[in-house]
């Protein structure tokens, strides 16, 4: 039974600060995903929780114990590495049992635990093999087996699926999700793949530049991103942005216009913006619909027809390019003019500092 508490956690390498005061609380049994672009500090943060990196400042609490100075082996954690990090000279059986052997677990108990873990992961037939005789997916299973056999309070995953091919990744993603349900353990998962983040997480932590940008459930982040970074990072394809000015504020609707858009209505409670404010309009490619005389008009560039949907690259008058994902198959030609409209409830506005102008 262990939750985690990160209090103003900091990490610097010499003068370079990579984690700039992270506050986070993770409940027992939660599946938390750290996402962010390369170099945002998500792996560093995970390694600090694991005890592989020293903590420069702040407090890390696992369960109800401050573990800043506690050795990794006493933190009640297990970690799965991106490279799997299986010991090449040991069989799968010994790989999985290595931690138990170090803990001087009696042989019979050890054997039982190894076989239980192997059964859960359906790899009983692999126990006598060496890692070099396994495929990528099997190695990943062994790495996870090595983690479960220690019965940790907290599982740490460092981009565990990024070395697998696309199909296997989907399978393993489901298995990890199932494992989380079966084991009822806290899991912290680092990835740069936002699909993994969206599908696995109870709670997503978006990191950029060593700072937490937003914490929330996947749908919350998708629907109500706190700032431009989260809005651009979560969701695929990426959200479209354009600089606009507020024209007219009437009741709970604001009309915004800019070089590329004319009079787009956005649903917003009164009093949030004043006419003339400089804002950024954000619209998800999926929220754009074809209209006869839309607010957004552009020239059709590349068209990707996938059958169930059509992805259009739209060149706007200012030279910016937007993506629109249109329902069904649309026979559009390169170079023709296309008008799009947007649902006022789904358009988002961000202020000059990049923070969301909250709709709620």
């Amino acid at each position: 039974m262990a939750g985690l508490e990160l209090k103003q956690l900091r990490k610097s390498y010499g003068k370079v600060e990579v984690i700039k005061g992270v506050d986070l609380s993770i409940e027992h049994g939660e599946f938390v995903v750290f996402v962010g672009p390369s170099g945002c500090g998500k792996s560093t943060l995970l390694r600090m929780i694991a005890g592989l990196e020293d903590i420069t400042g702040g407090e890390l609490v696992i369960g109800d114990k401050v573990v800043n100075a506690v050795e990794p082996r006493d933190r009640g954690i297990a970690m799965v590495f991106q490279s799997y990090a299986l010991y090449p000279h040991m069989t799968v059986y010994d790989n999985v049992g290595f931690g138990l052997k170090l803990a001087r677990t009696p042989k019979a108990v050890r054997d039982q635990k190894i076989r239980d873990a192997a059964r859960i992961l359906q790899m009983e037939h692999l126990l006598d093999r060496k890692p070099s005789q396994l495929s990528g997916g099997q190695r990943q299973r062994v790495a996870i087996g090595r983690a479960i056999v220690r019965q940790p309070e907290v599982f740490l995953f460092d981009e565990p699926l990024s070395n697998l091919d696309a199909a296997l990744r989907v399978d393993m993603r489901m298995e990890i999700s199932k494992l989380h349900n079966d084991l009822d353990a806290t899991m912290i998962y680092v990835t740069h793949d936002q699909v993994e983040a969206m599908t696995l997480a109870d709670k997503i932590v978006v990191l950029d530049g060593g700072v937490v940008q937003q914490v929330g459930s996947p749908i919350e982040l998708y629907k109500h991103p706190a700032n431009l970074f989260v809005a651009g990072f979560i969701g695929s394809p990426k959200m479209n942005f354009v600089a606009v000015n507020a024209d007219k504020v009437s009741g709970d609707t604001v009309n915004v216009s800019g070089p590329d858009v004319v009079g787009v209505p956005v649903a917003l409670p009164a009093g949030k913006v004043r006419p003339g404010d400089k804002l950024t309009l954000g619209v998800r490619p999926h929220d754009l619909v074809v209209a006869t005389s839309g607010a957004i008009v552009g020239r059709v560039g590349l068209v990707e027809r996938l059958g169930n949907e059509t992805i259009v690259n739209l060149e706007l008058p200012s030279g910016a390019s937007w993506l629109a994902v249109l329902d069904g198959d649309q026979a559009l030609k390169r170079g023709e003019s296309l008008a799009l409209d947007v649902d006022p409830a789904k358009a988002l506005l961000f202020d000059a500092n990049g923070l969301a102008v909250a709709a709620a």
Partner: protein
Amino acid sequence: MKKRTSILGGAAAIAATFVVFVIPFIFIILMAFKDRQQSALRDFSWPTGFHFWENVVEVVKTRNWMMITAFINSSIITVVSVTLLVIFAAMVGYVLARRKTRWNGLIEFLVLAGLMVPPAVVPTIWLLQGLKLFGTLHGMILIEVAYNLPFSIILYRAFVATIPRDLDEAAIIDGARPLDVFFRVVLPLLWPVTVTNIVVQSVGIFNDFTNPLYYLPGNANATVQLTLYNFQSQFSTAYNLLFTNILLITIPPLLVFMFFNRQIVAGMTAGAVKG
């Protein structure tokens, strides 16, 4: 056309190897079968009689079974110093490759200096006498370890860099203490270099002539290479016995090489394939 040149090249290489390595060895064997008169001619002739067995007995019995003592001494020195070399050099190589500090440059310079600066014999003897280690086997072992450590460290350090750091970290998470990480995870993975080290260093130390000559005086302390002096002097040299002696003391290094040769190859191929 190309094929013919490559065959010719191969044949030339084999011939050269034969002349350099095999002919001297054949000469040693032939000499070991000769009697004293014939061996004194020092020519490449077929032995007139079969004197091998009496030569062997003579060599082994000379100077109160000195050969036996020498074999025991040499084996102790070789086994103990190679063991120490492997463990210490692997440890130093591991730490040098893994832990980056500002002292690394200096340490690496000192290691290289150990290779480059020739050991000074007289001060070393003076130091050994001060430590009461002069003329003892363990003193000799320390000398061999010290002289050969830099080379072994350099071999190990380069190889440790190829072992992913993730493995260390996985072991730490699994609950390994530093010595567990080293002995259970890193050292087994260093096996290919360890074999190279064992072969190179044990042959070198077993065949060492000068160091035991300087630092290990006395009949009771003789090592195998020093037994060669038994049959060689300014006025009379028994060449048949000298070469029998050479033949006998060549056998252990040859065995080491034959035993580990397979392992070197196996170790190399295991490391070559990603996995």
